[in-house]
């Protein structure tokens, strides 16, 4: 699943993939540059990446993880009451900092909805370092809705905090939002539409939307 982000004034491709063991080493490489040691959002982003790998490993030991879109579709089709965890990564091979621009740790709940545990971007993106990479957070959230829609899952929900509620209010166009956001119905469709506005069309022969480059980093 592909979408576009902004690097400076140019649009660049990013790919949303399911995290696997080999990707965790790329997440471990999220480090704080010395000049960002006191930058709180950047430090928090590193903490979230560490937590994501730790949690993913825990759920893998219990065998309750999803590593492919087909598994999510399959769980939805079987209408199982299993709770399943998955880690989504926004990957971009052209990025010189890290091939992983952001992550979202999610759960399929017992009734087949998706709960967003947490979502974070790379520390240098959080710290708005040059060259600036933008629209990653919204890209991941909208791609998650598209993934849910393609898998027959009608609802994505989660908890907001005092720091994130203004983002959700704007992104979901709901100024009355409090500590819980539910993306379903018209808002769900709106997020999927926004994703398509950011998407790379796979059959586009114009060269405008080339497939995402493979990461140059090796685990």
């Amino acid at each position, binding site marked *: 699943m592909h979408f576009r982000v902004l690097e400076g*004034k140019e649009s660049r491709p990013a790919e949303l993939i399911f995290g696997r063991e080999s990707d965790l080493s790329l997440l471990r490489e999220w480090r704080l540059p010395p000049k960002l040691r006191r930058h709180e959002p950047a430090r*928090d982003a590193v903490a979230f990446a560490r937590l994501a790998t730790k949690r993913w490993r825990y759920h893998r030991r219990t065998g309750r993880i999803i590593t492919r879109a087909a598994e999510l579709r399959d769980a939805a089709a079987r209408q199982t009451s299993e709770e399943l965890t998955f880690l989504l990564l926004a990957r971009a091979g052209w990025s010189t900092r890290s091939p992983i621009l952001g992550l979202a740790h999610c759960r399929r709940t017992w009734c087949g909805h998706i709960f967003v545990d947490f979502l974070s971007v790379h520390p240098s993106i959080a710290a708005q370092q040059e060259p600036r990479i933008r629209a990653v*957070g919204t890209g991941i959230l909208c791609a998650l809705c598209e993934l849910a829609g393609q898998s027959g899952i009608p609802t994505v929900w989660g908890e907001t905090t005092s720091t994130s509620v203004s983002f959700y209010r704007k992104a979901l166009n709901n100024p009355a939002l409090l500590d819980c956001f539910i993306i379903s119905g018209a808002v769900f469709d709106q997020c999927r539409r926004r994703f398509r506005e950011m998407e790379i069309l796979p059959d586009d022969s114009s060269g*405008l939307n080339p497939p995402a480059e493979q990461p140059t980093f090796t685990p």
Partner: protein
Amino acid sequence: MKDSEAALVKRLEKIADMEDKYFPGYLGNPTALGIILPSMRRKIAARRRKPAARRRASSPRRTPAPAAR
């Protein structure tokens, strides 16, 4: 082609401008997840460093018992 690329960049810029204003870098509740983020650690440390004068002011004053005659 250039027009559609420009339109795409314009759409992305609109989204990115919204993110610049409202996206804090991460979404999620660290308290619910049971983690202490570096930013929270600093606030906790600041609270512990509350000046002694303020600590005394906020705690009830103990008056000495009257001396026995």
